[in-house]
């Protein structure tokens, strides 16, 4: 499709682009910060609302540089929540300095745009551009609190690790290009098939080098080491955003790359992902056990969760694909919700240590209950969203016969229960030294409520989500 015709399917992105500029201008013009926030959310809603027609048709846009399929629609809807909820929570929060909020909203909107683009491309160049741009924006967001020692350190680590990972990714891409002679993923299998068996080593090397880049994005072991530090150091709304958004898109891109470009090498990467999946979840869970900073616990937990999602990817069967995306969707609400609550507590207590959570159930029963529900969902307790997700990843492993993977995952889930309940214990079982109730922040509470609704509703009525993912997968398969 040529660029002009493509624009018809590019409306959400266009709206976001416009919003970025408008809000930047209005910020300079001195519009009050909350209004900027509302505007950003309105823009996000507008961009999703502009989706029209049959959502699950597949179209190639901009000379095949971008693709419009079910997954990209899915991403657009997810981005609304990924970006919208942190913005909503930030409007009344002090975790982001009031002066910087304008920039923050703009950055978030830009990220929304980049994420959507990242999710709708099967071209190496676009993949690189979007990934790198998302990374650069993320570095800035992490470091946006420039007088915070931890935040600036986190952003530096994120930057350096990301830079090296990107360099490796690019080198891998260049090798892949050399082997196949094309940058379009869709053309790769045919081209790679022509190479003959002696080049398989080179193909796998290219694949592995690319895997490093995406592994960094999804915090897959052994490329996860930045994650706990960065999530801990980043401002909490940003940390929440980082644990879900780049990770989700990382998975989508990885999924596209592996299934579109390397279907022939399925056995190799599948076996590799099984091992890495076990490694990732085990490292995440085991490291989390001895932490006593809630944010860091959640950071390691998000590493572990990446391990579970990898199970679906490793299986890569139909159930596996559902597993990956349903996991990502539920994880979005659950983990973001948890971080939002952490943000509210942090704002009130100025600390993320477990001690700050002691007696929370008395000081603010609502917050304690919601955080408990999010943690239960993360632990995979029904009837919450996390259970449906866990159900699917386990199902994908069992279905394809990865029994040992399933067993490792089961053991890991039990370990995970331990540290999630450390937080619950602090909130409900340990008496706190403070009695004062925690101040209500209505907007943040609304954001938490939305995440809560998502967590519970998907748990009880998962059908719409499953149907959506099914359709997305169908449209993807007709490629």
């Amino acid at each position, binding site marked *: 499709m040529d660029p002009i015709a493509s624009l018809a399917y590019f409306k959400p992105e266009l709206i976001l682009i416009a919003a970025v500029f408008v809000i930047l201008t209005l910020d300079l013009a001195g519009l009050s910060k909350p209004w900027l926030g509302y505007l950003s959310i309105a823009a996000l809603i507008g961009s999703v609302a502009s989706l029209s027609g049959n959502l699950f048709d597949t179209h190639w846009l901009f000379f095949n540089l971008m693709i419009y399929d079910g997954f990209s629609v899915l991403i657009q809807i997810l981005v609304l929540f990924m970006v919208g909820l942190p913005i909503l929570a930030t409007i009344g929060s002090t975790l982001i300095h009031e002066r910087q909020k304008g920039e923050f909203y703009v950055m978030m909107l830009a990220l929304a745009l980049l994420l959507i683009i990242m999710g709708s491309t099967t071209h190496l160049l676009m993949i690189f551009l979007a990934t790198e741009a998302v990374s650069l924006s993320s570095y800035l967001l992490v470091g946006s609190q420039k007088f915070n020692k931890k935040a600036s350190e986190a952003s530096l680590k994120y930057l350096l690790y990301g830079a090296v990972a990107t360099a490796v990714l690019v080198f891998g891409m260049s090798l892949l290009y050399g082997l196949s002679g094309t940058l379009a993923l869709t053309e790769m299998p045919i081209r790679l098939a022509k190479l003959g068996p002696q080049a398989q080593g080179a193909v796998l090397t290219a694949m592995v080098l690319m895997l490093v880049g995406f592994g960094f994005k999804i915090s897959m072991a052994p490329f996860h080491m930045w994650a706990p530090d960065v999530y801990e150091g980043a401002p909490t709304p940003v940390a929440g955003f980082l644990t879900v958004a780049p990770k989700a898109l990382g998975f989508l891109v990885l999924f596209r790359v592996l299934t579109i470009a390397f279907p022939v090498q399925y056995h190799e990467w599948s076996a590799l992902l099984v091992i890495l999946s076990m490694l990732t979840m085990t490292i995440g869970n085991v490291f989390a056990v001895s932490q006593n900073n809630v944010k860091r616990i959640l950071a390691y937990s998000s590493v572990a969760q990446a391990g579970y999602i990898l199970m679906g990817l490793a299986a890569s069967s139909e159930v596996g694909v559902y597993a990956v995306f349903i996991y990502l969707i539920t994880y979005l609400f659950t983990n973001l919700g948890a971080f939002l609550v952490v943000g509210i507590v942090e704002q009130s207590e100025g600390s993320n240590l477990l001690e700050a959570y002691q007696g929370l159930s008395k000081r603010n029963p609502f917050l304690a209950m919601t955080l408990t529900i999010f943690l*239960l969902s993360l632990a995979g*307790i029904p009837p919450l969203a996390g*259970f449906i997700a866990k159900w699917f990843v386990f199902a994908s492993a*069992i279905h394809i016969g990865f029994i040992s993977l399933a*067993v490792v995952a089961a053991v890991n889930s039990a370990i995970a229960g331990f540290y999630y*309940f450390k937080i619950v214990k602090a909130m409900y079982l340990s008496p706190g030294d403070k009695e004062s109730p925690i101040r209500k922040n209505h907007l943040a509470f609304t954001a938490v409520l939305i995440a809560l609704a998502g967590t519970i509703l998907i748990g009880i009525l998962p*059908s719409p989500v499953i149907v959506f993912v099914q359709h997305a997968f169908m449209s993807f398969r007709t490629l």
Partner: protein
Amino acid sequence: MNFPILTWLVFLPLLGMLAVMLTPKQNEKLIKQIATVVSALLFLLSLKVLMAFNLHDGGIQLAEKVMWIPQLNVHYYLGIDGISLPMVVLTALLSLLACVASYGIKDRVKEYFALYLLLETGMLGTFLALDLFLFYVFWEVVLVPMYFLIGIWGGPRKEYAAIKFFLYTLAGSLFMLLGILAIYFTSTPQTFDMIALRQNNFAAGFQHIVFLALFLGFAIKVPIWPFHTWLPDAHVEAPTPISVILAGVLLKMGTYGFFRISYPILPEGAHWFAPWMGILAAIGIIYGGFVALAQTDFKKLVAYSSVSHMGFVLLGLASCSAMGMNGALLQMFSHGVLTGALFLLVGALYDRAHTRDLSAFGGLGAVMKVYAGILIFVSMGSLGLPGLSGFVAEFMILLGTFKIYPVITGLSCIGILLAACYMLYTVQRVLLGKVNPKWEKLTDMTGREIFTLAPLMIVTLAIGVYPILILKFMTPAITALVGLLS
């Protein structure tokens, strides 16, 4: 079908929970009233189910089936048969009594009753679900309120006990989840419907592995030796009403899983593993008995006696015979009633004396006459005195198992002997001998306490004297189950 009675049974407590949550925290009286009324209604509903139950049908009755997640072929499928009916009635009864027994809770009343009602939903759902997915959901729903109920209102080591209970059961249930998934993907057509799955003849090797996976999940819940170590901690630390529920209902969920899932769906696996179950059962019976004998903490003693008694259920299951399984089911009911009563008695004593150390008591028989009478009655039931329900159950189990595993059964008989030893020893330490002057002022049972215990005593006596009262409900279903096994 016009009145979805089973759905009401499951979700009425949930409505109650919402009502409790909407009640202001200060209005403790209203909260207690809501919880009691809901529990009472629940009990009435369970009696209505009992009335509506067709005695001659060994299959599923009063079924309610609605598509829930069509993509996974998951149904909201509730139904009742002779196996679940006693459990539902038991749950409803114990819920009501434990609810009344909970009036003594002073701290965080609103949270307590909200969680308590949620627990009721989970328990009833587990016993009524006929869809594996739904079953698992309810199974896990039970865990969370239990964690809090032990963890917040428990004894000195409550946090340890609560997390131990939670992690043990969680680990077990995750393996159960794997087993359920394996069943789902191997069945043709792929379904979670427990009844439809009976038609599948799974390959023997598959059945063995899946049976083991499910076994792990159920075994931890029961708990079968050597997975039992969470139990003494949880039972001892939990507040009295929760101990009642824990011992009376939660343990039964484990054995119920064998009846409902493992045995009918994986008969080959059941036959393969039954001897090992028999051995584990005998170990559990004897081991539990001996350890109970060594206890000085009254509650811990009752907890270990549960290990021993639940071993009998497992033994009956291992027999795969009609009589043994009937006995096992009856033992589940009977143990629920008797252990519930025992925990209530322990609680009553603890409330007065603030200690559970058996060596500190003595001669209370002269001080608390009614208490003494009830304790002796319940102890006799627990040690298997004929005329009370425990005997009938254990008798049927042993007689049913004897033909198949004579040696194991013979050894298990030691368990009966041990039960006599530790129960009588307990009675002696608490009631007999000279009165410790410290306890001369203890008051006798209050009306509320007698109200919570009387129904349990009546039930255990009625079943003991005339077991057909309950066996007639069970037998057709058990016969059908044994038919599936052979």
